[in-house]
């Protein structure tokens, strides 16, 4: 058992648990943040993607001890001050989802790229999403949403 301290969606957070436990299940089971989804358990579908500092990371393959002192953002922390992020706006505008189960991971993958550089071209953002799976086949709309959001962020929207 160890106490792991990190910033979660802007708030200082401490969890006392086995530091080898997986971030995904600490988020979901210990901290009640169920927006991050379990899809494969082996980092091959992207559903559990969260952002650590400014990197997109698969929470199902990350030990909670690894986030000590770091900043973790989940889908629940993307909207700020009651205002949706441009990616969320764009996903709604283009109906870029169907069942919605991959959506959190898709948004977080794109969010990380745009967090690092808000001027990242859409094609670069989509490269990040290549390893994110969507079974409903919402891909063409996700492409549109990412394109719209990237354009908005290039223009200064946050």
């Amino acid at each position, binding site marked *: 058992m160890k106490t792991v301290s990190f910033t979660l969606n802007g708030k200082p957070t401490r969890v006392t648990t086995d530091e080898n436990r*997986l971030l995904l299940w600490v988020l979901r089971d210990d901290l009640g943040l169920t927006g991050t989804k379990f899809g494969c358990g*082996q980092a091959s579908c992207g559903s559990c993607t969260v952002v650590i500092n400014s990197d997109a990371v698969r929470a199902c393959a990350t030990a909670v001890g690894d986030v000590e002192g770091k900043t973790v953002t989940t889908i629940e922390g993307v909207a700020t001050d009651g205002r949706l992020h441009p*990616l969320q706006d764009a996903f709604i505008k283009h*109906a870029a989802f169907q069942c919605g189960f991959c959506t*959190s991971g898709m948004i977080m993958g794109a969010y990380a790229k745009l967090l690092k550089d808000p001027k990242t071209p859409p094609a670069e953002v989509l490269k990040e999403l290549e390893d994110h799976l969507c079974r*409903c086949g919402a891909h063409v709309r996700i492409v549109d949403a990412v394109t719209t959001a990237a354009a908005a962020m290039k223009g200064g929207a946050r």
Partner: protein
Amino acid sequence: MSPFNNDLEVPDGWGFVQTIDRRDFLKLTTTGLLVMFFVEPLMGRGSLELPQGGRGGGTPADLNAFLHIGADGRVTCLVGKVELGQGAMTSLPQLAAEELDVPLSAVDIVMGDTDVCPFDSGTFGSLSIRQFGPVLRRAAAEAKGVLLEMAAEKLQVPVTDLAVEAGTVVHKTDRAKRVTYGQLTEGKRIERRLEGRPALEPVSAFTIAGKTAPRRDALEKVTGKAKYAGDIVPTGALHARIVRPPAHGAVLATLDTSAAEKVPGVRVVRDRDLVAVLHAHRDEADKALGLVKATYTPSASTLTDATIFDHLVKTAPAGDTPFRGGDLAAGEKLATSVFSETYRKGYVAHAAMETHSAVAAVENGKVTVWAGTQTPFPLKSQVAAALGLTADKVRVITPYVGGGFGGKSASQQGVEAARLAMAAGVPVRVVWSREEEFYFDTFDPAAVHTIRSGIDAAKKIVFWDLVAVGSGSRGVEHIYDIPNHRTVVRGGWNGNPAGMHPFGIGPWRAPGANANAWARESQIDVMAAKAGMDPVEFRLHNLADARMRRVLEAAVKAFGWTPKPGPSGRGLGVACGIDAGTYAVNMAQVHVNKATGHIQVVRLLSVQDMGVVVNPEGAAQQTEGCLTMGLGYSLAEEVHFKNGELIDSNFDTYQLPRFSWVPKIETVLLESPNLAAQGAGEPAIVPMGAVLANAVFDAIGVRVHQLPMTPARVLAAMKA
């Protein structure tokens, strides 16, 4: 029958009265207008062959709709359908709002809760709009009729002088005379029924349906707030990981759970054949499961994904001949060219992103199961049977479902959660691992099609002799003008001998129709090429069905198809299909890398006649989903297995379509105002295998006879 009242007395044998959680239901219905609408089966299921797997057989008793109109004027649709991503929670309220003449924003919807929604056999078959839509419309129209009668009495005017505007009944000339739906229903329980059948609004007068409505699930899904079954956590709930065999047919020999039991916080629970380790944290339950020592006798199965096709042909039942006409021998005599081809397709997984998940809690002897399921009502019956409970002691609630595609028609995980919750005495969460998801999936069955056919000197198809093994009868009928023909169907969803398939099979988006269309439309192209005709022209030359001709001609125009006999080197393909009442034509363009065998799809077009379109944007989303998902079974998806063991059990080896695979997609929905709304969730996927196989042939002059068309198969076909 069309009883209309707001009390809870319903016909015997229907079961709703016994299953109501009165506390919740009465909260909703003690005041206001409740419409319970029952209709006789409106239409037979027609050519729909309903697969097995958790679905009731026989005549559906599920064409029921409930509507509630509250004192605040808000309308609640209570429907047994569920939201799988297909958008029914958005499009069904459009229909209710349309018939009731209320704003769409005044309509709420409750879905898939067996205690408050009317029975429904399941969300599948592209039926939510096609079959359930008319029922909901009638319920809404009947409610409006009754409200108009009540308004006439209240305002002391003839009902014919009244009209409804946005939930308010208004006198047509004396506009001061008005009363809202809410005022009419306020504080009263209303028991009335309309004399005679209500008239439905003509489609041409639609103002809400037929137009794009924003998805109601959008905000919750982009903010992570949308709850799926695995996100429901009753107080004290524990995760369960169940001890599973390594292969289909393997039988548990020895079991030692002592190491797992020693882990703090772990409980081991056994209910007959079900053994599970429980822990509050999923990852710790996973770890404890790894400590369970179980040995199994090996599976007796010796089948592999390579030997399965001969096995299917050997073991499939003799089958039926659903379609025949003319004289095959006479037809063959007329033929100047005879074609004999065999087409194969492997098993395909549903692979919804949400694995089968359920949470069960027992309170005061009543079990509540939150399940990601396409069949909440059948699941309720299964839970009751498994636990030896009466139906009123089981409630199934369906939160958002993370994709189904037919795979969540089977809901074993709901029964497992309920059994374990009962055995453990605490709420239990069962969220299958991806490996369990593959292991217990009811795969789209492997299939073998052999077709002999022939054309005469005039390039007319003169005979067609098809034997379909494994894929059932949906969409198996040839759609062309062929005077001499026979279609034999050997094996489908019901009546397969034990051991024919080495694991579970079940409905997969347009069950069997993908395989059936792939074989038929490939064969048509084989003949077109030999005839030296452009594949579109060859189809039109042999096609009388005016509806399909219209769709095909519209596709030619939308795609900019210019005729050229194949192989033209352009990589263009066409294929037709009929499914769920909708006519679909797909066109494609591909590039084939002759060195690697890799197929890159560069363009896809879908043109459909699906009758009246309730939500055009929703229909477009479904169509895009069909085309994208269809890339998978056509190009890459195939379940590999050996001796009862699945070689593919996760996404490291089982490949789903990715962003780089997805081409430019165009969808066209033809105006079809005189035809009722047809299915949208499945038809456009049906032609995918053939349209890509035909495009590959057009690109490189080589026909691939097996799906998926992996690079290895393309290279092998090039060498052959």
